[in-house]
């Protein structure tokens, strides 16, 4: 098993995400993250899926994705070949300037902080703040770009 990132170019049309998530459901693939974004191309979206799969499962998953008519292309990359970022909004008691600087936090409103960056660094931040200081957190899922 290893973490893989799939970049799936799809038609920007209702129902496409349903077809893709149906694959996870039916084959019982455990997804880590799904992010949908536009790439600037008209009528087209890119879905970035991060999940742990072995080689055989990854191959199957890619074939099943390609079979969907609304899927234009599928690229699979190991996570170490990608630049990966994750956004999050954290509601917390006043965070020190030192911590804000360390994690490049942006205070959107008093007590609400935005994070954007390396997902493992986000994990560190959560640890450092601790459960009793975090009142609420929303993680936005991984977004990624292939390097090079």
């Amino acid at each position: 098993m290893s973490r893989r990132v799939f970049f799936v170019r799809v038609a920007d049309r209702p129902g496409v995400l349903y077809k893709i998530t149906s694959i996870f459901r039916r084959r019982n693939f455990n997804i880590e993250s799904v992010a949908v974004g536009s790439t600037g191309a008209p009528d087209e979206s890119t879905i970035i899926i991060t999940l742990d799969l072995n080689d055989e499962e990854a191959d199957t998953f890619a074939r099943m994705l390609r079979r969907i008519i609304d899927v234009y292309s599928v690229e699979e990359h190991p996570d170490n070949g990608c630049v990966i970022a994750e956004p999050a909004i954290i509601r917390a008691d006043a965070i020190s300037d030192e911590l804000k600087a360390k994690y490049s936090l942006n205070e959107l409103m008093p007590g609400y902080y935005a994070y954007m960056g390396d997902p493992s660094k986000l994990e560190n931040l959560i640890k450092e703040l601790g459960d009793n200081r975090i009142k609420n957190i929303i993680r936005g899922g991984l977004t990624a770009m292939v390097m090079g």
Partner: protein
Amino acid sequence: MEKTTGARALVKALEMEGVGVIFGIPGGATLPFYDALKDGNIRHILARHEQSAAHMADGYARASGKVGVCTATSGPGATNLLTGIATAYMDSSPVVAITGQVAKAFIGKDAFQEIDTVGVFTPVVKYAFQPLSAAEIPPTIKKAFYIASTGRQGPVLVDVPKDVQTEKADVEYPTSVTIKGYEPYVRPDPAAIKEAAKQIIQAQRPIMLVGGGAVKAGVGPLVLELAEMLMMPIASTLMGKGAVPEDHFLSVGPIGMHGTYHANKLVTESDLVIGVGVRFSDRTTMDVGEFEKEKVIVHLDIDPTEIKKNVKNVVPVIGDLSESMKGIINEIKEMMPFVKDSPWWRRLKELKEQYDGKVFGDAFSPYIVKKIRELLGPEDIVTTEVGQAQAWAEIFYKALRPRTFITSGGLGTMGFGFPAAIGAKVARFSANVVDIAGDGSFLMTSNSLATSVKEGIPVIVVILNNSVLGMIAQWQRLVYNNRLVAAWLGESPSFPDLAKAYGAEGVRVNGLEDFERAFKEALKSEVTYVIDVPISPDENVFPFVPAGKGLREMMT
């Protein structure tokens, strides 16, 4: 460009696709469509249940190779249609289903007879459309037929809201179609063909395994050419029956849970399997690990998703079957001379002489099936229900032409055979069409008798009537310690009386000679003819490979 209603545009678009017949039942959400049908040139055949309408369209498609069309209203009409569409999907049959939908303003509001049809059908169709304006209808129909009939074929849904049917708009009818992200024609990779050919000539005991894809692609002659070059047996899956004539000297019939003894034996002994348009389903391979053991598997298929899905260790050739077969034949021609004799060929001959058509045990049903074969011409069509009758037909009915053996292989839908026979008869009216049925399956869609009588579509139904859900009883006897539960159907109804109540003919026969007489009568009949053949409830279908076992563990 013309100004017209969505419903009229729908009818015209269907006519432009060459549609001559639609199977369906009207309902509130399809009234505008039916109103437009009245002015068109399409024959409408009224089913008595939407499931049957879908099976009729499917039977039509399988017999003709053309797209079959069915229609139902929203809500319960659509959900009733679902089983038939799922059946078509599992067997890759080109069907276009047109459903009515409530008006756009009511969608998502739990309106009367509203269901999320697109959501419900998406997992069992190749594509689902919902045009939201009248102008979208002609291009949608064009795409629907293109998707259904190209590449790996399959059903397509077109769900049309009622107000889209009544809306007037300027519409144009496209003459060509391209769909971004959909490239149905795949040219096989020459390197893959070379590798496949290399593996094939190295094999000592190769066997061909032809599937439903070989029937659809019409590659029977190429399969024969390759098999004759190497003098290797040609086995089939249930769906592959008829791809090559089963009376050919190299044909050994189907393998699988209810394969022939010699085909299962030969595939077990082989060192290389050439799968042509097959998906290596669990009913075909049985224990798949056992199946793959000590074998090279060359897998030819148009659908890349099938490669390594069930059997893992394969030499794949992905693409158009005809191109792939031609490529392999050409490679082999250059590399090796024709085989005239080999120990493998002698083994095939020996097993075939011993087991071809052999009846294990004291079952009577096989003799009925063989008699049907004897009395029908090569172009005539057999459909089957699902269960013991289907398994008897699989083993003992030799299909001699593609598209003459029509059965629900993937979904295994009881009630398929009779409406599919009606659809097949509409497609090829000059052929005799016979449904090999069991008493359990036939009752599921026997109300299609009304359709066959009223619309003048005579078919023959042979009911192997054992008063039980035969396959259930067989499993309960052989696998569940003889504990019979809920398998007993009893002797109700009287099938001849049932047939007559609908205006069809029906007769109960006693023994093989009586059956032959009745069948010859049926062949002359101008109405649907039901032949009720009493069978012992204790008959088992043999050979039988219980689920979870390998093909070598046949019960006989």
